[in-house]
C-alpha cells in the first residue's frame, strides 16, 4: 500500500494514496463538517461544507485526493463564514420540529449546525423559504418527508451505487429540485425494491421508518429467509422483535439487507403463533399439555417403526434441529425415509454436481462474485430470489463485468445485461450444449484444464454432434448469432461464473441441466479459481445445511451413503444401534407411498407441502391417507390443519443453532427472545427419549454440533467457539485448525479419480407441453417480497402491501388475443386443477408463456403444476406445465 504524508492543521497525517482529504482527516479523528459524504459511496461534492484551505486555495475535502506534502487547514475565517452561510441556507429550508422527529439526536444537520454554532439570530436575517411537500407514505416500511430533505443525494447514490436499482434521482431544477422517481410518483409506484438501504443512510429525518421503535437490545444472528445467509442485528424491546440492522462485518452481506431481511420479521410475534400443543380429539384440534402431546406422539410412533414411517425435516430449521430429526428417523424409527424440500429445489444439484465434481454445492463464495468478469445467470431471477447476491452481480457489472442472462422471462437483471438469451422453458440442455459446441468449434476451450483436470472429454465431444447451432436455435428459439456471441463472451472473458437456480433444477431433466452447467464450466476451465465456478443459488436459509445433516433418504450426515457398509458401521458404532441399509423414499415418493398405504405415519417439521409441492391435490390425498401425522410448526399452516398432533415450534429468533448458507458457510443463529414454543431440536429429542431411545441427551445445540463434527467430515472443525467470528466457517472444514474452504476444487475434484467428469447429454423435452386444450406454458417462481408458501411473509403487513395477491403474468399479445386486461380476475387451469388470480399484462412474459408465484394460499399455484419427476433426483417439473387461461 502506497502511503502519502500530508499535514492537516499542522499535524502530520499518513494515509493511503488515493484517499481524499476528508477521509484522511476523519480517519485521524479530525472532524470536518460534511453532509453528503458517506463512506460507502463515491464523493459527490453537493453540500459544499467540507471546504478546506489547501496551500491557500479553497478545495472540497471530499473531492480532493491527498498529495505528498500537502498543507491543509480545516479552519480559517473565510471557511467559517462560507460554511456558516451554506448551513444557514440549508436550515432555512428545513422544518424545525426536531423534538418530534425520530432522527433527533442522530441527525447530521443538527450535528453540523451545532458544530458551526448557528444561532436563531443568524437565521432571523433570512426570509423563510420552506418547501411544501406532502409526505410520501406509500411505502409500507418507511415515510419520505421531502420537506426535510437536504438534497445531499445519499439516497440517490445508495439506490444507484449500492442497490443498483436506480429508483430515485434528482428531479427538476433550481429551487424546485427534489428527489424524484420516474414522473415524480410515490415511491411504491416506482421500481423501488424497499430494501431500506437509503433509509439507513439518510442523514436527516427525510427518510424515517414507519412506527419507528428503537430496540432496547440487539443480538447478532442469521436471516431466516433465503440461502444467502445475511447477518444482522435483530433488535428487541422486551420479547418483541422490533428491528433488524445489517452487520457490516459480514463477508456475506457487508451490512446490506433486502426488504424481507430488514422488514420481514413481524411474523415472530404474530398473534397467530401456536404456543400450546394441539391434539385431534373428535375430529377437532384442541389444546393440550406438552406432556400429553409428547407421550401421545411417542406411543403412536412406536407402532410405526420401520419403513411405514417417514420424517420430513426442514430447510428452515437449524443444522442441529435437522441432525436430531434424521437421527430419530434412522436410529429410533429404523428407516431412511427422511427427506425435505431440497427435493423440490436443488436435489438435481446435489446429484448432478456430485457426479461432475464430487460435491453438490456452490463451488465459490458470494464475495468472490466481485472478482467475476463474466456472469452466465441461467434460470435464476437473482435480484428477486437472492437479493443480496443480486447486488454483487449488479456491482460487478457496474465495475465492468459482462452479464449474460438466460431466462425465458425478462427478469430485472436484463436491465443491465450485455446479452439476454430467451430460451424456451425446458430447453436448457440444448442451450448449454449448444454453447459448448460453439466454444469447441471455435477452439475457445481451455485445453490445459481439460487435459489435466478432467476425464471423459472425448465422449462428451462426441455427444455435442447433436447440438449444431441450427438445431439449437430451432429447439431453444435463441438466434444463432446470439448463441455465438454468448459462447464467445463466456469462453473468453475470464473468470466466468455460472449462476443458476430453480430454472435449471425444477425440470423432469433437472439433473441433466445441472450436468450441462458442469460441462460448460469445465470446458472453459472456470473451476477452482476466484470469480469462477458453478454456483447453484440455494433457496432456503438452511437448505444446504439440512442436506449436509443427512436430511436426505440416501445419505447420513456429511453425504456418507447409507448403502455403504463402511459408513453404516461408523454411524452404528456412534449411535449404538443397527441401521437400515436401504435408501429411503424421497419427498415425492413419500406422498405416493401414503396413498398406497406403504407409509402410515409422518413426522413433518417446518414444511407446508400442501402449498409448496407440485400437484397439490395429490399431496393432499396422500396426507389424508395417513394414519398418523405430526406437524411441528410456528403456525397452523394449511398442512398442520390436517395433522393429528401439532407441536408448537420456535422461530430463528427463539433458539440457538447454526444455518449453512448457499456458499457452505456455517453461521450462528442466536436466541434473542423467550421461546413461544419449544426449540425444534428439544422437541425431537423429547419424543425420542419418550420412546426410550438413547443418544438424545443433548444439553444444548453446541453439544449437537459436537456430535455432527465427530461424524460429518466436512464439519469436523466446526465448533460454536470458532463460529463467534464475523465470517463463520465455510465447509469443508475437516479439523479444528482448518480455516475453512472458500473455493472448492482448487487443486483436485472430490471424485474418486480426483478429476472432473464430463457427462455426455441428449436433449429431452419437458414432459408436458402446451397443446390445443392447454395452450399456455406455465412457469413458476418467487417474488422479492414473499417467501415460499408465505407462512412467514404473509404475516408481515408491509410485505403484503407490496405484493398483496397472486398475479398471473401474461404477455400483451396473448392477453390481447384473450381479451384480458391488466388487473382483471382470471382462472388458470391445468389437467390437475384450477386457481384464480389477477392478470398482470407484461412484456416480461414471452408469447405463449405465463408466470405465477406459489406464495398464496388463496391462489394455490401448485394445484396446477406437473408431477413429472426427474429420474435421478426425483424433483418435480415445477417450471413447466400446460395451462389454459380464461376470464373469471
Amino acid at each position: 500500500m502506497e502511503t502519502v504524508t500530508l499535514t492537516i492543521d499542522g499535524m502530520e497525517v499518513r494515509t493511503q494514496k488515493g484517499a481524499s482529504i476528508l477521509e484522511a482527516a476523519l480517519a485521524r479523528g479530525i472532524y470536518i463538517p460534511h453532509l453528503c459524504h458517506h463512506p460507502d459511496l463515491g464523493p459527490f461534492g453537493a453540500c459544499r461544507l467540507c471546504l478546506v484551505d489547501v496551500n491557500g486555495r479553497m478545495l472540497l475535502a471530499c473531492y480532493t485526493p491527498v498529495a505528498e506534502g500537502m498543507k491543509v487547514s480545516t479552519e480559517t475565517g473565510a471557511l467559517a463564514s462560507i460554511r456558516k452561510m451554506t448551513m444557514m441556507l440549508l436550515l432555512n429550508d428545513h422544518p424545525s420540529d426536531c423534538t418530534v422527529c425520530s432522527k433527533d439526536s442522530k441527525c447530521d444537520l443538527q450535528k453540523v449546525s451545532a458544530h458551526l454554532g448557528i444561532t436563531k439570530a443568524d437565521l432571523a436575517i433570512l426570509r423563510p423559504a420552506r418547501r411544501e411537500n406532502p409526505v410520501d407514505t406509500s411505502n409500507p416500511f418507511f415515510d419520505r418527508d421531502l420537506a426535510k430533505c437536504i438534497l445531499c443525494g445519499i439516497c440517490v447514490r445508495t439506490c444507484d451505487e449500492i442497490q443498483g436499482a436506480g429508483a430515485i434521482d434528482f428531479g427538476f431544477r433550481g429551487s424546485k429540485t427534489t428527489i424524484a422517481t420516474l414522473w415524480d410518483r410515490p415511491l411504491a409506484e416506482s421500481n423501488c425494491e424497499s430494501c431500506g438501504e437509503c433509509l439507513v443512510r439518510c442523514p436527516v429525518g427525510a427518510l424515517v421508518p414507519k412506527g419507528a421503535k428503537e430496540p432496547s437490545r440487539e443480538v447478532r444472528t442469521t436471516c431466516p429467509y433465503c440461502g444467502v445467509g445475511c447477518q444482522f442485528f435483530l433488535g428487541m424491546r422486551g420479547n418483541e422483535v422490533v428491528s433488524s440492522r445489517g452487520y457490516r462485518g459480514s463477508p456475506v452481506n457487508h451490512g446490506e439487507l433486502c426488504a424481507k431481511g430488514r422488514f420481514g420479521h413481524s411474523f415472530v410475534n404474530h398473534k397467530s403463533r401456536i404456543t400450546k400443543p394441539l391434539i385431534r380429539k373428535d375430529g377437532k384440534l384442541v389444546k393440550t399439555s406438552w406432556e400429553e402431546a409428547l407421550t401421545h406422539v411417542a406411543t403412536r410412533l412406536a407402532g410405526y417403526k420401520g419403513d411405514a414411517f417417514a420424517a420430513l425435516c426442514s430447510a428452515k430449521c437449524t443444522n442441529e434441529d435437522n441432525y436430531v430429526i434424521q437421527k430419530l428417523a434412522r436410529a429410533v424409527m429404523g428407516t431412511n425415509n427422511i427427506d425435505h424440500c431440497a427435493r423440490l429445489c436443488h436435489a438435481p444439484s446435489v446429484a448432478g454436481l456430485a457426479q461432475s465434481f464430487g460435491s453438490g454445492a456452490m463451488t465459490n463464495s458470494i464475495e468472490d462474485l466481485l472478482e467475476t468478469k463474466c456472469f452466465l445467470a441461467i434460470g435464476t431471477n437473482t435480484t428477486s430470489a437472492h437479493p443480496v447476491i443480486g447486488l454483487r452481480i449488479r456491482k460487478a457489472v457496474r465495475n465492468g463485468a459482462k452479464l449474460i442472462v438466460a431466462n425465458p422471462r425478462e427478469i430485472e437483471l436484463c436491465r443491465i445485461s450485455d446479452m439476454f438469451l430467451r430460451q424456451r422453458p425446458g430447453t436448457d440442455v440444448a442451450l448449454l450444449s449448444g454453447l459448448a459446441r460453439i466454444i469447441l468449434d471455435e477452439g475457445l476451450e481451455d485445453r490445459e484444464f481439460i487435459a489435466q483436470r478432467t476425464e471423459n472429454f472425448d465422449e462428451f465431444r462426441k455427444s455435442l454432434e447433436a447440438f449444431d447451432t441450427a438445431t439449437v436455435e430451432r429447439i431453444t428459439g435463441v438466434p444463432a448469432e446470439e448463441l455465438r456471441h454468448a459462447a464467445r463472451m463466456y469462453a473468453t472473458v475470464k473468470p466466468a461464473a455460472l449462476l443458476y437456480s430453480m430454472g435449471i433444477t425444477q425440470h423432469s431433466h433437472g439433473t441433466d441441466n445441472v450436468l450441462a452447467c458442469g460441462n460448460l464450466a469445465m470446458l472453459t476451465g472456470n473451476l477452482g479459481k476466484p470469480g469462477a465456478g458453478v454456483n447453484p443459488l440455494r433457496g432456503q436459509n438452511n437448505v444446504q445445511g439440512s442436506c449436509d445433516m443427512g436430511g436426505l433418504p440416501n445419505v447420513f450426515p456429511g453425504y456418507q451413503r447409507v448403502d455403504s457398509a463402511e459408513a453404516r458401521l461408523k454411524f452404528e458404532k456412534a449411535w449404538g444401534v443397527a441401521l437400515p441399509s436401504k435408501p429411503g423414499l424421497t419427498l415425492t415418493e413419500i406422498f405416493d407411498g401414503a396413498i398406497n398405504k406403504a407409509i402410515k405415519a409422518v413426522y413433518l417439521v417446518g414444511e407446508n407441502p400442501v402449498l409448496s409441492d407440485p400437484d397439490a391435490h395429490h399431496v393432499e390425498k396422500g396426507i389424508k391417507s395417513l394414519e398418523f401425522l405430526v406437524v411441528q410448526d410456528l403456525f397452523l399452516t394449511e398442512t398442520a390443519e390436517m395433522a393429528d398432533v401439532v407441536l408448537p415450534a420456535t422461530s430463528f429468533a427463539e433458539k440457538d443453532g447454526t444455518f449453512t448458507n448457499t456458499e457452505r458457510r456455517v453461521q450462528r443463529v442466536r436466541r434473542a427472545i423467550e421461546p413461544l414454543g419449544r426449540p425444534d431440536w428439544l422437541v425431537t429429542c423429547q419424543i425420542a427419549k419418550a420412546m426410550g431411545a438413547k443418544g438424545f441427551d443433548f444439553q444444548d445445540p453446541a453439544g449437537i454440533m459436537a456430535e455432527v463434527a465427530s461424524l460429518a467430515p466436512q464439519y469436523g472443525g466446526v465448533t460454536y467457539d470458532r463460529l463467534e467470528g464475523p465470517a463463520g466457517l465455510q465447509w469443508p472444514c475437516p479439523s479444528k485448525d482448518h480455516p475453512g474452504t472458500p473455493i472448492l476444487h482448487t487443486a483436485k475434484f472430490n471424485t474418486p479419480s480426483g478429476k472432473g467428469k464430463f457427462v455426455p447429454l441428449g436433449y429431452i423435452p419437458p414432459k408436458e407441453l402446451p397443446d390445443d386444450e392447454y395452450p399456455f406454458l406455465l412457469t413458476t417462481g418467487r417474488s422479492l417480497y414473499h417467501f415460499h408458501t408465505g407462512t412467514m411473509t404473509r404475516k408481515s403487513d408491509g410485505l403484503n402491501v407490496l405484493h398483496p395477491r397472486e398475479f398471473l403474468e401474461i404477455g400483451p399479445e396473448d392477453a390481447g388475443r384473450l381479451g384480458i386486461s391488466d388487473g382483471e380476475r382470471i382462472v388458470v387451469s391445468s389437467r390437475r386443477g384450477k386457481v384464480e388470480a389477477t392478470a398482470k399484462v407484461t412484456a416480461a412474459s414471452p408469447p405463449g408463456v405465463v408466470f405465477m408465484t406459489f406464495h398464496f394460499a388463496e391462489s394455490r399455484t401448485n394445484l396446477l403444476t406437473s408431477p413429472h419427476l426427474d429420474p435421478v433426483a426425483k424433483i418435480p417439473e415445477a417450471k413447466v406445465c400446460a395451462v389454459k387461461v380464461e376470464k373469471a
Partner: protein
Amino acid sequence: MEEVLGRFKGSRGELIGILQAVQERLGYLPERAMLRIARFTKVPESQVFGVSSFYAQFRFKPVGRRRVMVCQGTACHVRGGAKILDEIEKRLKIRPGGTTPDLEYSLDTVACIGACALAPTIMINKDTFGRLTQKKVGDIFGGTPEKGGE
C-alpha cells in the same frame, strides 16, 4: 421511436441527444418513450426523468402543431408584451405551458427571441411576428376574446 433509437448506439452519454431526437419526432416525451429510452441506454428510468426534468427544453405533455412562444424579454416587456400574452391566453383559452384540446396550439413564454427591434414579438414555430398589437393578435389567431376572462 425505434427508428430514432436506431440512429444511436445506446450509450449512457447519448441520453440527452436521444431525448432531443425522440422529442423532435413525437413532439414531447411520453412515459412509454422514457421507459424505452431507459432500457435502451441502461440508464435507470428515474435518471432519465431526472435529466429530462432538469432541462427546460423537454416537454412531458403533447405539444400543439403550432408552438406559440411569447417573448417576455426586456424590450418586449417595456412595449407591452404582457398585454400580448394576455390577449393570446384569452383567445386560445390556455395558459403558458398548456396546449389547446385540439392539439393545434401550445403556448409558452420565452425570455428573448433576439428580435428586440420588432418588440413586442412572438414566434409561432419558426415564424416571427413583430410590432404586435391586440388587434394583430386577433388577426393571427382569430376567435373572439372572452371578455372578463381569467
